[in-house]
């Protein structure tokens, strides 16, 4: 078993970058989805979206705790103590929730990408990460099935739903690639088996998986690669979300719950 203290500085920094990227993705999509609580299109979906959002924020919490052990910081401080520019979520998660079709398109893009990523991380040589992501993967299977069901429902609907869905897929396609943006120190992680498959190979797996589903809905999607700064660009939408989810932490710095 790999113990945190056994890691050299280079490996620990690279691993911290990887864990932070997954944690921030789960944290930010969890908060965006929680924006639907109370106003989802129907009651059953309100419950489902809220439950999924709670899962994602729970995953983020566990990942921030794992990261906290790596870098010697409190999970709460990592989650709520950074400026908006310090977050490392993929640019796919920079957009506000939009209409329902937009949220469904994003959730499908994110869940499929996350499934590919978790499939690799569950075999990480860093045992605490492998155990946690292996457990998360079981839960995410439910999210994925739910996202697929909604994608089909909107794509097969009459009226404007298929068109709104197609517009959303085209609008998000380029940013969706950035879930697989290269990480600083990635070679070190691949060499040590902590990230068993490089991001560019995971990206290729994901594209092969989603194109046959998405192109009949949205038309031909451009060949595009993750951008180098795909986890560094922050948006006005995210700045707003950040001000929302840090508001309690900022007003009550010593609060515990």
């Amino acid at each position: 078993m790999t113990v945190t203290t056994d890691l050299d500085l280079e490996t620990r920094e690279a691993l911290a970058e990887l864990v932070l990227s997954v944690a921030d993705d789960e944290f930010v999509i969890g908060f965006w989805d929680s924006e639907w609580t109370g106003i989802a299109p129907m009651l059953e979906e309100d419950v489902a979206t809220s439950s999924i959002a709670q899962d994602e924020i729970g995953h983020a919490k566990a990942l921030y705790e794992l990261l906290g052990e790596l870098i010697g910081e409190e999970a709460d401080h990592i989650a709520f103590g950074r400026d908006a520019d310090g977050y490392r979520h993929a640019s796919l998660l920079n957009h506000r929730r939009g209409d329902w079709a937009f949220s469904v398109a994003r959730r499908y893009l994110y869940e499929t990408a996350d499934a590919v990523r978790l499939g690799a991380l569950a075999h990480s040589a860093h045992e605490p990460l492998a155990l946690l992501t292996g457990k998360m993967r079981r839960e995410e299977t439910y999210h994925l099935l739910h996202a697929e069901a909604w994608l089909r429902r909107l794509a097969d609907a009459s009226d404007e739903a298929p068109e709104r869905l197609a517009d959303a897929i085209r609008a998000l396609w380029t940013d969706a690639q950035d879930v697989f943006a290269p990480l600083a120190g990635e070679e070190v992680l691949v060499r040590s088996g902590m990230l068993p498959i490089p991001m560019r190979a995971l990206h290729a797996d994901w594209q092969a998986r989603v194109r046959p589903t998405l192109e009949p809905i949205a038309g031909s999607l451009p060949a595009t690669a993750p951008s180098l700064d795909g986890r560094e660009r922050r948006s006005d939408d995210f700045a707003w979300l950040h001000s929302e989810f840090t508001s309690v932490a900022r007003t009550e710095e010593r609060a515990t719950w």
Partner: protein
Amino acid sequence: MVSAAAGSSVERVWAELATIPDPEIPAISVVDLGVIGSVAVDQDRVRVELLPTFVGCPAIGVMQEQIGERIGALGVAPAVDVIVTYNPPWTSDRISDAGREALRRSGFAPPAPMPTGPLLGQLDELAVLPVAECPYCGSRNTSLDNPFGPTLCRAIYHCTDCRQPFEQFKRI
């Protein structure tokens, strides 16, 4: 070396744990729910490993606290550590037969057994079973209303025969 006295301490801890209810579904104990991974006792401390049903389960902290207090009161060792671990991961197959019966009696359909074989290769088959057995009338003429229920670990079904909505503890 494990002495006879230490052995009986471990048994006392397990017996006490069997009386601690799950905070969200009090009809079932934490032992029958399968969330206790292991118990170890030495002269300084009791160590209990807790396996969360879901990573984001908000009841984990409450469980840790309750277990810490109740086991601490037993006085088998000066300190109690309740450690959260995913090794092994909790799965719905860890719910005991007695636990399944307790769930049924309080209106929850117990989760169906997992498919056998290496699990990571079969995740897609982990789909929520479209049918659960109604805990009220035993009918399998039921439909899945929502794979997401009032807590992370529960799905909502409807019984077509007795027209009763009910929840299933999710298969995972």
